[in-house]
């Protein structure tokens, strides 16, 4: 039986190896796979610049995030070598490194390049002394608020989630919701937002992450308190359908004036406060996200670019990455797109860039820096299992929001799932 099966599998996998082609594309050509966000869109528009500079043709494929996820898993394991440069969300990178899907680019990028990159995001890609990717994006959690509505309600900008609850109650009427946050299940959706509440109340994912004790602690009283707050804010003070909102819906609700507060990543907040996008921009302010007994922990999401282990053209790939994160390229993109999340330090010295984002909102760049300072690198645990864990926890949290199970049950279920996934 066993023999038969392995033979069948081997046959199905290797049947056509004799026809295998070693290279999918020419040597002076690289394939870049990214998912859609302002930076990557901007980068795609600059592909010709790269070819003009280096003579290397870059096929920059910018796809939807779902499409991206489905593709890379098989490309990496299949070792197809069809991707030379890949988008590396920091939360996934650990898993990829462990699985051997990336090659380090420590020796391939120059000191000159790395020294111009913010230390935090750069460090997020340093594992076992090797550099596995270079960051181009660091989004942090911010809060936008409607000055006019706060004034009308006679309330201050909330400093803590406790404050938020009381302010939200004052603002919420039949026609006016107070707040919207991502609630859709997913490690990049509600699990981008919820840990901000969790960590403010002192909640953690593991007993001692820094000390290396990976016993799940999601079922803690702190987390339960946080989840109750999160659920209450969304259900009692959110607009209709808030229980399944994702960033797009949050963005739309804010721009339509449906809500007073949005706690979101910089990308969305910058759109909410941008007069070109939003009719309420002139009455909207920016602040740090609320904190709690354990302080303030803005969400952080880092994106970078790395080289898959199976890449056939890694020299050209490294060249591309260096070009993509260079001050010149990033400045161009920051000017062409709505992209304030750059990690190349010297771009902030570019007066045009500074002027552009100051014109959107004077506090924007400064609040972003303040939030970056507060953010912890392992906001979401940097372990290989995280994507699976985050998915499972996100599903439970979403179920609690939508009343399918109670918050207590949700956390119990999440803890059981975590143990299951971690094999404990």
């Amino acid at each position, binding site marked *: 039986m066993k023999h038969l099966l392995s033979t069948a*599998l081997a046959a*199905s996998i*290797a049947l056509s190896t004799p026809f295998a082609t070693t290279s999918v594309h020419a040597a002076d050509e690289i394939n870049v796979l990214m998912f859609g966000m302002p930076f990557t869109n901007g980068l795609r528009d600059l592909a010709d610049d790269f070819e003009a500079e280096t003579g290397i043709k870059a096929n920059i494929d*910018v796809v939807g995030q779902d499409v991206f996820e*489905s593709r890379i898993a098989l490309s990496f394991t299949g070792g197809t070598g*069809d991707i030379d440069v890949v988008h590396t969300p920091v939360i996934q990178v650990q898993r990829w490194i462990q699985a051997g899907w990336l090659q380090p680019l420590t020796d391939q990028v120059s000191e000159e390049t790395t020294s111009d990159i913010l230390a935090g995001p750069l460090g997020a890609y340093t594992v076992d002394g090797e550099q596995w990717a270079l960051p181009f994006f660091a989004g942090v959690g911010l809060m936008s608020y409607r000055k006019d509505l706060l004034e009308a309600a006679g309330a201050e900008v909330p400093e803590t989630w406790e404050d938020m609850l009381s302010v939200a109650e004052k603002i919420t009427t039949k026609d006016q919701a107070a707040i919207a946050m991502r609630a859709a299940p997913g490690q990049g959706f509600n699990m981008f937002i919820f840990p901000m509440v969790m960590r403010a109340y002192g909640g953690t994912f593991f007993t001692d992450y820094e000390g290396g004790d990976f016993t799940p602690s999601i079922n803690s009283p702190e987390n339960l308190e946080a989840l109750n707050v999160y659920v209450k804010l969304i259900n009692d003070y959110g607009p209709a359908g808030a229980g399944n909102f994702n960033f*797009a819906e949050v963005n739309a609700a804010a721009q339509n004036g449906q809500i007073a507060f949005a706690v979101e990543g910089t990308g969305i907040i910058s759109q909410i406060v941008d007069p070109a996008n939003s009719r309420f921009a002139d009455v909207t302010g920016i602040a740090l996200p609320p904190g709690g007994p354990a302080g303030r922990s803005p969400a952080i999401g880092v994106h970078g670019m790395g080289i898959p282990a199976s890449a056939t053209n890694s020299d050209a790939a490294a060249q591309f990455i260096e070009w993509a994160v260079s001050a010149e390229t990033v400045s161009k993109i920051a000017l062409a797109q709505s992209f304030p999340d750059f990690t190349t330090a010297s771009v902030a010295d570019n007066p045009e860039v500074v002027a552009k984002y100051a014109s959107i909102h004077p506090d924007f760049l400064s609040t972003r820096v303040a939030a970056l300072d507060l953010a912890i690198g392992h906001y979401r645990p940097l372990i290989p299992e995280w994507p699976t864990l985050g998915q499972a926890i996100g599903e439970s949290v979403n179920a609690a929001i939508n009343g399918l199970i109670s918050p207590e049950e949700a956390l119990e279920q999440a803890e059981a799932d975590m143990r299951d996934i971690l094999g404990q």
Partner: protein
Amino acid sequence: MIDNSRQFHNRRRFGLAMMITLLVFAALPTVWVLVLSFRAPVAIFEPIWESPTALTLQNFYKITRSDFPAALLNSFITAGLSTTFAMLVGVPAGFALAKARLSGKFIASWVLLLLRMAPPVGFVIPLFLLYANSGLIDTYLGLVFAYMTLTLPLVTWSMWNSFAQVPDELIEAAIMDDASLAKAFFLIALPAARPGAVAAAILAFLVAWNDFFYALIITRSGTTTAPVAVMNFISYDSVDWASIAVASIALTLPILPLMALANRYIVQSLSGAVKG
């Protein structure tokens, strides 16, 4: 008598009301997509009656400058090729299955149905590993081969049914007239089963055109098909509804004339299968 006619009118009215309700159900999303496609991006989240003039052609222009037209072309090529291959291979096979004297015809029909109905999620990984080793990832050929798993059983099975309705005596008459089997097939059986063949080709094209899953896994930038490309309008921080609406229209328009043209043939070929 009076009672009867009132009943009759009530019934008519009820029937009419139901048909109108169903028509609204059928037409609303279409109308909505048309509206959405002409909405100015700023006004997209506002009800149409609040800013009825915020209409624009910009969305259409924008999409012509994206990757979507290329994906549409890829869809045409792969759906067209896989339909052609499936017809070339499946139509003769359907004919032979309908007319040959074979044991195990039941098994054959079962296998065909099963292949048509099997869940692609199980197929796709072995297929991917196979492709990865043979350089078929992101090639038209690879996608066309994958679509053959959908279109070939469909074409063979429905042509089998269509040819079964062509009387055996027609083929025998041709054979008696000294036609070779090939001539009997091309000159007699195929023309007699034409509605079925047209319907089969259109259904096969639809299935391939419709596919999302295979294309998601085994295409890259070079051969991305339109159903996958439309997902690219959902990006990291926004959903481009206007482009999605335009893309949906672009995805549907090529199918419409086919459906209008083939409506008759599909009913014709289905009716045989159903009457049996």
